């Protein structure tokens, strides 16, 4: 069975007028893959993530989701294809954990915003999967940073998109928490229904858990290879 192509970018140029971050890069991502994006601060990781999630336009080149140019995908359609987890946790006052997770169901809600039994099922599954079931009734604002991170990942999960993009999802977590998240991300792609791209600085953990990295290297530019092939000190 051949794997289905989720994302493809061709001849991508990103950056700003006076500084190119990525010059003429092309790459494909298939369902079932987990890719770690590594590189130094300011090298363009977030910019690349924003470009493939459709939040930013590239300077030139194209981004395609399921072989459709991202600029031709409507916002509603895009919301069912890509979900994101950003580095900054929003300040949400007066909402419980389960309500925040439920916000990820927005693309599927009707005008009145009522949750169907399918919605509730997905939400319950996410709460269990990310280990936040016990705090589901708790106020989101009272959680620790690590728990908030799990809530935001669960929120992206219930959006049920084939592509999930996470910007430094392990930042606020302790060592065990980080390993947990990487394990879960891998689990999510096991059934071959999703692909995940996440950026991270945790090179050791990536080497242990992830098979492919997209790396911004100093000398060789943007490379795609096994994490063990990227030499220490190269990025």
């Amino acid at each position, binding site marked *: 069975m051949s794997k289905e192509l989720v994302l493809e970018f061709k001849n991508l140029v990103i950056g700003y007028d006076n500084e190119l971050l990525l010059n003429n890069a092309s790459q494909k991502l298939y369902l079932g893959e987990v890719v770690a994006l590594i590189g130094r601060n300011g090298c363009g990781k977030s910019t690349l993530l924003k470009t493939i999630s459709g939040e930013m336009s590239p300077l030139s080149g194209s981004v395609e989701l399921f072989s459709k140019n991202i600029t031709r995908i409507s916002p509603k359609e895009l919301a069912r294809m890509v979900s994101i987890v950003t580095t900054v946790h929003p300040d949400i006052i007066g909402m419980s954990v389960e*309500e925040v997770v439920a916000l990820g169901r927005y693309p599927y809600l009707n005008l009145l915003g009522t949750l169907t039994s399918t919605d509730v099922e997905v939400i319950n599954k996410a709460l269990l999967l990310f280990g936040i079931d016990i705090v589901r009734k708790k106020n989101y604002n009272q959680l620790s940073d690590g728990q908030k991170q799990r809530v935001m990942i669960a929120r992206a999960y219930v959006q049920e998109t084939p592509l999930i993009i996470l910007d430094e999802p392990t930042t606020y977590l302790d060592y065990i928490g980080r390993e947990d998240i990487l394990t879960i991300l891998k689990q999510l792609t096991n059934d071959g229904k999703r692909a995940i791209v996440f950026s991270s600085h945790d090179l050791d953990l990536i080497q242990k858990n992830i098979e492919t990295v997209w790396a911004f290297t100093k000398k060789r530019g943007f490379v795609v290879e096994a994490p063990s092939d990227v030499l220490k000190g190269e990025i």
Partner: protein
Amino acid sequence: MLRSNESFKIIILQVCSILILALAILSVGPVEISFNEILSFVFGGKLSVENEAILVSFRLSKMFTAIAAGSALAISGLIMQTYFNNFLAGPFVLGVHSGASLGVVIWLASTSFFLGESNWLVSLGLPLASLIGAVLVMVVLIFLAPVISNKSLLLVMGVLFSYFTSGIISIFISIARDSDIRSFLVWSLGSFEKISGDRLIIMSSVIMVGSVISFLFSSTLNTLFLGDRYARSVGVSIKRVRFFVVMLTSVLTGTVTAYCGPVAFIGMISPHVTRFVFKIGDHRVLLPATTLTGAILAMFAELLVSIDFGIGVTIPLNAILGIIGGPIVFAILWQNRKGFAI
């Protein structure tokens, strides 16, 4: 999905308080009409001719005005607080009231000079002038908000704008004819009275439409809590949201201001009181509940206006709202003195 039972109970309680306040408003005044008389009238009984006239042409309309105005201000306050992610926002604090007032005063001063005060064109244009004033302020705020990282600054600017407009309004008052001055002054003190017939129908239907559209908007409002990036990622069009926020808050605030004057505090306080009682952030419950709270606050204030405290004059609405609202706002500020909510 969640906590709906508890919320439902509190909403029933709110509806009950509205009914009780309604009875009280209909009963209290220079001529006292007993609860029994009112209830029997509601169920088809007869009243004395004078009492029926007082009830129908005066007290019923001020009751409905209070309900409509209170609801409208509360909805508009909640939408502003959520959009600006600032729990001290509200039509009064952000200066949207002032924009509306300025529109009204400019319209009245210029048209009544040429057309005379009772001209139908003047009263028809009144809500429109108010709406334009409100829209202008909201548009400025929405474009300033992303540039201003300090949340208190937006509020300070709203307050400054209020001073600025009250300066202009004072100029208009000082050059206006004597007969206009009194009506300007009375209007600026806020009142739910003297609005009846066509004006009441226009006001309440606009508010009704605005409320229904706001309710349909509530799950989108929920996503705004996540911030622009996340909201966009779940398919919310930020441009459309901005348009709705400007239009809904301006129409609701503008309509109330045109007819009742710049009514203070209700818009800002109602969402707080509701959040405090319901402990909920989900707009699908919060919005209807806040609407009811707004109506309750407005009715309660109106009741105090109607009571003769033995001093022979009635206390203006904004004086009462100031005396009740000031301490409540202080309590909110005190509770959040470490600054996490604003």
